[in-house]
Every structure is written in structure tokens, then in C-alpha cells.
């Protein structure tokens, strides 16, 4: 009987293994570098702009002197996105309810599901064009207005809400639904009293993620709300918004305005990141429970 010798494997294989592991690690680190760089520069160039007056004064469009802050932009974004959320979140949850409670695997439901999925891939600029053609060009209710921007954003947010809501609603155990139905509750009560409350954390998470997405979009607003400087809380007028404000400021030759752009970008990213992290925290907490 021969002695076993554990001859080590071909060193080339060992080397390849080591090299590839290094490559994969390097790839991961490369993927993280942009995030680090962006955050760094946002803080580096944007923090300096932050001040009391930055948040409490409006941009004034002056060619010289103090260019003003970003108050109207923040207010505009909050209002426009709030209206967009009021539209897209209930409708989105409604469509998701249809898909999970009524449509299920039926042909029509599958078609709806398919096109909602496809909707997530539509460029945001196309949604802006849609609203522009149907509402702005036709001068329905004014020209560029805040609420038309909300409509455009809600088109964008809708599929996000539907997809997230559907996932969450499907996670509600059917045993819960059946127990309620067996007690004689009508379907609508089962939905409002059992399904929705159980799915609530997930629905909130999905909605928050959609809101964060909507807050950051520029292109749809360009064609529906256009540009404005002054503060107005009238959604029926042209409004300012953070993304559009930043977009405009970028092409300015004045350094102070560029600095304002960085400050506004930092503000926007901070808002978006906070909403994202809250959404994740809610998701994690509800899973642990």
C-alpha cells in the first residue's frame, strides 16, 4: 500500500486563486470610491455655504452681490414632492392591493404587473415630456406650475410604490386573511383592518424610498415647473425646487453661485440620505419584530 503524499496543488492554481480574490476585493473597493469622493466633496465644498441666511433667504437672481440662499428651493421641493406623494402613494398602494387581493395571477393583473415593472425603466425625462405635452403645452390650468411638476413626479414614483407595496402585501400571511374572513368579516374590512396594518411598516418604507427618489429628480421638473427664484407656496404658479436650482447654478460664472450649488446639493443629499436611512431602519425593525 503506497503512502499518501498530499502533494500541494499546482502553485499556479494557488496563485490564480489569490490574484482573483484580490481582484474581487479591489473591484469592491473601486465601487466604493465614488461614494466616498462624492460625500467628501459635498462636505468640503458645500458645508461652507451653510449658514442661517442660506436657509432663510431666497435666491434673488442678482448679477452682483449676495446671490441669496435656497429657501424657496427647499420649500418648493417639499411642496411639490408632498403633492406628488399624496397622489402616487395612495394610488400605488391601491394598485398593489388590486394585484395582491383581487387580480393575483389573472391575465389582466399580469399585464398590469408587467407594465408597472416596465414603467420603472422609463427615463424620468420622458415623464416630464408626457406631462408637458398633455398639460403644459395645452395651457390647462396655467403654463408651468408646481402641481404639474407633482404630476410628473408622481408618474415616476408610482411604479416604485406599487412594486414595494406588492412585495410587502404578499408577505402578509394568508393565514391572517383567512382567519379574518372565517370570522365573517367582509373583504374590505379584512383589507383595512388586517392586511394594511400588518403591512404598514413595509408600506412606509416603500413610500419613503419613492419620496427620496422623487426629491432628487430634475428633468421632469424642468418641463413642468420650469425655473423660478421667488418663494411661493402657490402650487398653481412656477416654483423653485432644489434640483432645478442646483442645475441652474452650475452654469453660472460666479463662484459664489457655484458655492451655493454645492451647499444646495449637500442639503439635497442630506435630505435624501436621511429619508433612505429612516426607511431602512423601519424595514429592519419590522423584520426583527
Amino acid at each position, binding site marked *: *500500500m*503506497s*503512502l*499518501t*503524499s*498530499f*502533494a*500541494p*496543488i*499546482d502553485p499556479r*492554481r*494557488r496563485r490564480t486563486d489569490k490574484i482573483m480574490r484580490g481582484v474581487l476585493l479591489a473591484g469592491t473597493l473601486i465601487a466604493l470610491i465614488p461614494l466616498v469622493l462624492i460625500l467628501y466633496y459635498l462636505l468640503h465644498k458645500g458645508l461652507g455655504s451653510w449658514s442661517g441666511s442660506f436657509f432663510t433667504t431666497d435666491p434673488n437672481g442678482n448679477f452682483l452681490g449676495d446671490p441669496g440662499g435656497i429657501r424657496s428651493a427647499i420649500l418648493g421641493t417639499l411642496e411639490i414632492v408632498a403633492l406628488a406623494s399624496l397622489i402616487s402613494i395612495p394610488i400605488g398602494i391601491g394598485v398593489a392591493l388590486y394585484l395582491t387581493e383581487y387580480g393575483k395571477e389573472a391575465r389582466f393583473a399580469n399585464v398590469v404587473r408587467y407594465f408597472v415593472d416596465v414603467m420603472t425603466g422609463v427615463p424620468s425625462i420622458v415623464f416630464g415630456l408626457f406631462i408637458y405635452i398633455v398639460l403644459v403645452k395645452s395651457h390647462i390650468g396655467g403654463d408651468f406650475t408646481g402641481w404639474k411638476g407633482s404630476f410628473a413626479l408622481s408618474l415616476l414614483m408610482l411604479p416604485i410604490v406599487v412594486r414595494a407595496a406588492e412585495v410587502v402585501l404578499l408577505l402578509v400571511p394568508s393565514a391572517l386573511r383567512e382567519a379574518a374572513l372565517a370570522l365573517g368579516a367582509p373583504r374590505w374590512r379584512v383589507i383595512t383592518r388586517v392586511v394594511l396594518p400588518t403591512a404598514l411598516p413595509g408600506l412606509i418604507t416603500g413610500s419613503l424610498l419613492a419620496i427620496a427618489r422623487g426629491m432628487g429628480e430634475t428633468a421632469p421638473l424642468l418641463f413642468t415647473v420650469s425655473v423660478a427664484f421667488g418663494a411661493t407656496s402657490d402650487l398653481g404658479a412656477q416654483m423653485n425646487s432644489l434640483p432645478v436650482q442646483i442645475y441652474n447654478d452650475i452654469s453660472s460664472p460666479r463662484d459664489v453661485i457655484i458655492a451655493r450649488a454645492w451647499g444646495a446639493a449637500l442639503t439635497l443629499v442630506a435630505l435624501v440620505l436621511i429619508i433612505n436611512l429612516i426607511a431602512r431602519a423601519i424595514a429592519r425593525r419590522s423584520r426583527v419584530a
Partner: protein
Amino acid sequence: MIPPDTNTEEQTEMSTAGGPSEQAQDAPDLSALGVKEGAGHAIKVAGLHAYYGSQHAIKGIDISFPANEATAIIGPSGCGKSTMVRCINRMHEEIPGARAEGEVTLDDVNVYGEGVDVTTVRRMIGMVFQKPNPFPTMSIFDNVAAGLRLSGTKSDNLRERVHRALRAVGLWGEVKNRLGEPGTGLSGGQQQRLCIARTIAVEPEVILMDEPCSALDPIATLKVEELIDELKSRYTIVIVTHNMQQAARVADSTVFMLDGEVIEHAPTKDVFTNPRDERTERYVTGKFG
């Protein structure tokens, strides 16, 4: 006392060492392999402990697996038989949080020793799994060749060794005209024999089998058992099984495990007809497990 399986005598007569038959079903032909008769190697397990995190699954085991014999490991679910076998070819440590301590010597070399390359260990100690797992993206040929390609076997040599392995498991007649087809296109029993061919193509010294027939129908099971009987003459075999008739048919000696410990290790006949330990007797007579 277990009623003997009536087919056992006929099975031992069916296995021939003849050349490949012309009809679709082959008898296994191991003479085609480059492995000499009596070429198996002995394994000794000494002081083996295995953990899943803090759970102590194997509590100090000593077993000797003699060369060119088939040893069966039996015991109720959760007794640690699969864990123990996976410690032999160091697959246990692949599970996150799992670790093993002790000695497993192949001839006189400890596979847990310093400077031993774990991939060499696994090449020398082959494993067949409970569920047949041919690579789904590879053809029949590529499946058998998979291990050989790793060690850089050249194409002529490769082709020959693949054909030999397929002959050795008795699959050749059934697949020789469709070597390019996906490995998953075969029946369950054929897939398992394909996996065995894949294992022996790299010429291991020991073959571990973790309940290799539990996912197969009775006819496929018999074919695999017939193959194991043939393989014994050239390899050392350790087979985990929960089917006591199988152990009686195939194994020279049997180990009975309970709660991570070895209770009894004796020639198969003795374990089933005259067990020394009371717990063994209760298990083999079906009083529990």
C-alpha cells in the same frame, strides 16, 4: 433481526467484470480505470470534535476505516453522521461558523495537519452527495471532466479518462451518443452515477458517500449499490445511510452513531444480528429513529 432483502443474493451475481455490453444498460466496468485492485487507503479518525458555532455536534470520535472495505454509518437523524463524514474531507469547515478539531489520517498523514492544502485533501477524498448535483450549465462530458480540468489534464488524456470513468460506473452505453447534452437531462439514478463518475475521474483514494441513494427510486438505488460493491475493490468507501437494508447489502462493517458519539463499530452482520449495545439494538429493531 432484520429480514434479509431477498434481492441481495441476485445482486452479487449480477455484477460482472466483463467489458462494456452492447445494450443500453451496462454493468460497471472498473477494469478500464487506471486504479489497481486493492489500491484503497485506510482512514483513521482520532479524537474528532466538530462544532456549529457553539453547538457541539461531534463529541470525540475514534474510528478506523479499513482499506478496500465499505463502512456504513447509521444512526437516527441529527446524530452527526453527515457532519462526521464531512469532517473527513474537510467540507465541514465550509459552513460559516463551523469548525473541527482532532485528527483524520489518510494512511499516515493528518489531513488537518500543518501545511496541508485543503484542496488537495478534497481531491484525494472524493464525495458523493445525497441529492445528485451535476453542474447544470455543463454537458455530461464536461461534468465528468470538471475535476480533471481543474488539475490541468490535457485534452487527449482528458477524453480518455472521462470515457473510462463513464464505463466504470456503467453509464457509457446510455450516454455515449449524447455526451454533449446537459447533465441535468438524465434521470435521477443516471445523474447520481454521473456524479460518481465525476468523483472517480480524478482518481481519489477514498470515496465518501452521504446518503447517495435517498433521493433515488428503488431500481436506481440497486444500480448504485451494485456500483458501490464494485468500487470497493479499488477504493475505500464510507457510506452514510439511514436505510439499514442498504447497509446490510453493501457494507463490510457498520458504525452506529448517536448524539455525536460512536456507540458501536462492528462487522455489519454482527451489528444487525447481535449488537452489543442496547441502544444499537433498539435502533436496528426500529424502536426509535
